[in-house]
C-alpha cells in the first residue's frame, strides 16, 4: 500500500509539473492582457504533433523535442502577430468565439495532415525501462519528466521572480496601465510571453506524448484542467499556477488510484463500485468549489 501511494505520488508530481507548463503561459495571458485563450490546449496538441513528426523524421526523441518546441514557438509568434493582437482590445465574447474557431481549425488541420488515428511517439530507448528507487521500480522516463518539469519550473520561477523582465511581467499582470505609464512596452512584452507560453505547451505535449496518445482533441480536456489550476491558484500568478498544478496533479492522480480502494473498505461493494470512479473524476472540481467558497479570487490573487 505504501509503495502504491509513493508511486502514485510520483505520478501526481509528474502530472502536476506538466500541468504547470501549460498553466504558466495561460495564466499570464489571462493576467496581463485579460484575454481568454481557449486555443491554448490546441497549442499543446499541435506541439505534441510537431514533436512526434520531427522525432520520426530525425529518428531521435531529443532532436524531435527541440525541433517541435521551436516549431510551436514560431507558430505562437505568427498567431500572436496576426490574430491575438487584434483580440486584446475586444471583449471576452469575441475572444472566446475567435479562439473557439481556432480549436476547430487546429483539430481539423491536424486530422487532415496526420489522420484520425493517434500518432506514435516513443520515449528514447535508454529511458524505456524502469529504475529502482527506494525499493521499488519506477519508469525511468517518468523520472526524466519530473526532472525536466522541476528544472523548467525552477527556471521559470527564477525568471519571473528575480529577473527584470519577470518584474515587468508581474507588474503587467497586477496593473497593466500603470506598467505602461512607467514606459514599459507591454505589447512587445506580451508577444514574448505568448511565444514562451506556446513553447512550454509544446514541451509538455512532447514530454507527455510517449505516455498518452498523441491524438486529435487531446488539448481540450487538458485545457479544462489548466483552467482549474488557474482558478485555484489565482489569475496571473505564477506561484499560484505552480501550487495549483501540484495540488490538482496530486489530488487527481491519487484520487483515481486510491479512492475506489478506500471506498471499498468503508462502503458496501456495489455502492463503492458506483461511487468510486464517479467521485474520483470530479474530485478536483469539488476541491475547486471548496477553495472558491473561501477564496473567490484563488489562493494567490495577482490583482489585489
Amino acid at each position, binding site marked *: 500500500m505504501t509503495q502504491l501511494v509513493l508511486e502514485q505520488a510520483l505520478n501526481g508530481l509528474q502530472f502536476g509539473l506538466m500541468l504547470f507548463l501549460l498553466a504558466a503561459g495561460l495564466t499570464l495571458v*489571462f493576467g496581463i492582457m*485579460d484575454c*481568454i485563450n*481557449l486555443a491554448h490546449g490546441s497549442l499543446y496538441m499541435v506541439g505534441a504533433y510537431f514533436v512526434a513528426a520531427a522525432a520520426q523524421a530525425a529518428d531521435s526523441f531529443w532532436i524531435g523535442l527541440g525541433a517541435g518546441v521551436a516549431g510551436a514557438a514560431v507558430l505562437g509568434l505568427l498567431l500572436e502577430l496576426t*490574430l491575438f493582437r*487584434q*483580440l486584446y482590445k*475586444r471583449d*471576452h*465574447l*469575441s475572444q*472566446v*468565439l*475567435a479562439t*473557439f*474557431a*481556432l*480549436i*476547430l*481549425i487546429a*483539430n*481539423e*488541420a491536424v*486530422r*487532415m495532415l496526420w489522420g484520425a488515428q493517434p500518432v506514435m511517439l516513443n520515449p528514447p530507448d535508454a529511458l524505456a525501462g524502469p529504475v529502482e528507487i527506494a525499493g521499488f521500480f519506477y519508469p525511468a522516463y517518468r523520472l526524466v519528466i519530473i526532472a525536466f518539469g522541476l528544472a523548467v519550473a525552477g527556471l521559470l520561477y527564477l525568471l519571473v521572480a528575480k529577473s527584470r523582465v519577470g518584474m515587468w511581467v508581474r507588474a503587467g499582470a497586477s496593473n497593466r496601465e500603470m506598467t505602461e505609464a512607467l514606459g514599459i512596452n507591454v505589447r512587445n512584452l506580451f508577444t514574448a510571453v505568448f511565444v514562451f507560453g506556446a513553447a512550454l505547451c509544446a514541451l509538455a505535449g512532447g514530454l507527455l506524448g510517449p505516455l498518452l496518445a498523441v491524438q486529435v482533441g487531446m488539448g*481540450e480536456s487538458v485545457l*479544462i484542467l489548466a*483552467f*482549474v489550476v*488557474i*482558478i485555484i491558484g489565482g*489569475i496571473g500568478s505564477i506561484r499560484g499556477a505552480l501550487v495549483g498544478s501540484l495540488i490538482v496533479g496530486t489530488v487527481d492522480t491519487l484520487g483515481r488510484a486510491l479512492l475506489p480502494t478506500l471506498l471499498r473498505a468503508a462502503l458496501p461493494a456495489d455502492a463503492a463500485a*458506483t461511487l468510486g*470512479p*464517479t467521485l*474520483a*473524476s*470530479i474530485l478536483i*472540481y*469539488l476541491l*475547486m*468549489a471548496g477553495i*472558491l*467558497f473561501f477564496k*473567490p*479570487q484563488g489562493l494567490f490573487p495577482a490583482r489585489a
Partner: protein
Amino acid sequence: MAFYRPATYQKPLAIALLIALFALPTALTAGGQEFYIGFASRVLIFALAATSLNLVLGFGGMFSLGHAAFFGAGAYAAAICMSNGITDALLALPLAMAAAGLLALSIGALSLRTRGVYFIMITLAFAQMAYYLFISARSWGGDDGLPLAGRMTLGGLSLGSDSALYYAALACLALVIAFLGRLAEARFGRVIQAIRENETRMEALGYPVFRYRLICFALGGALAGLAGALLANLTGLASPNLLQWMQSGTLLVMVIIGGVGYLYGGVVGAVVLLSLEEGLSGLTVHWHIGLGVLLLGIVLFAPRGVAALFGKRHG
C-alpha cells in the same frame, strides 16, 4: 446593449413566420422531403437552447461557458423519467426543467460570487464536472448514454411521429420567445438589464443584485433543460456528449452569430449554424476548417452578429 424590444411591425412578421413554420411539415411531406422534418425539429430545439443561453448572456450579462450542462441535464432527466414510466410530456418536461433549473441554481450560487474571466472559467469547470459525473455514472449508461424507451405522449396523444414532435418543439419555442419578449418589458426584465448596465448603481439602489442574477441564471438553465428533453426525444438518447464543453461553445457560437441580446438572436444563430453544418458537411469531411475560418471572419469583420445586419438594437 439592450434586449430587443419587439417593435409593433414585428408582430405580423412573427405571426407570418409562425404560420410558415406550422405549414412546413405538410409542405415537406408533399415534396417528398420527410427527412428534413427531423432536421427542422433539430433546428427548433437548438434555437430554444441558444435562446435560453441568450437570456443568461445577452439579457443578464452573465458570460456562462457551461450552458451545455443544463441542456444535457434536461436530456438525462427526460430519459430517466421515461425509464420510470413518466411518459406524459406535461409531467416529464416540467420535471426536466426543474432538474436542469436546480442544477443551474446550485452552480450559479457558487459561480456568481465571482466576476469576469473567473466566472467564465468557473461555469466551464462546473459544467465539465457534470459531464464527468454523467460519463462515470454506470447506472445511467456511462459513456454510451441512456437510451429512451420511446417518445413522450401529450395527454394521450403520441409524439411518436416526427411531425408531432416537430409541432411540440415549435410550440415550446414560440411560447418561450413570447414569454421572454414579455419578460424583457416586465419589472424583472428591466431590473436585470439595469444590473447588466450598471451593477454598482443597482446595488446602491438597494436591489438584491445577486438574487436577480441567480434567478435569471436558473431560468436560463431550466429553459435549456426543456430543449435538452426535447432533443433526447428526437434522437432517442441522452448522451453525455450533450454536456461536453464543446457543446457549450457551439451554443455560444450560435448566440454570437445570431446576435447577443436580440430576442431572435438564438433562433437566427441556430438556423445559420445548423444549415451551414448540413450544407458544408455534404461537400467535404473537413468542413470544420471552413466553419472555423468563417467564425474568425465574423469576429474580425461583423462582431455584432448577423442579426445586427437586419435590425437596430434599441436601448
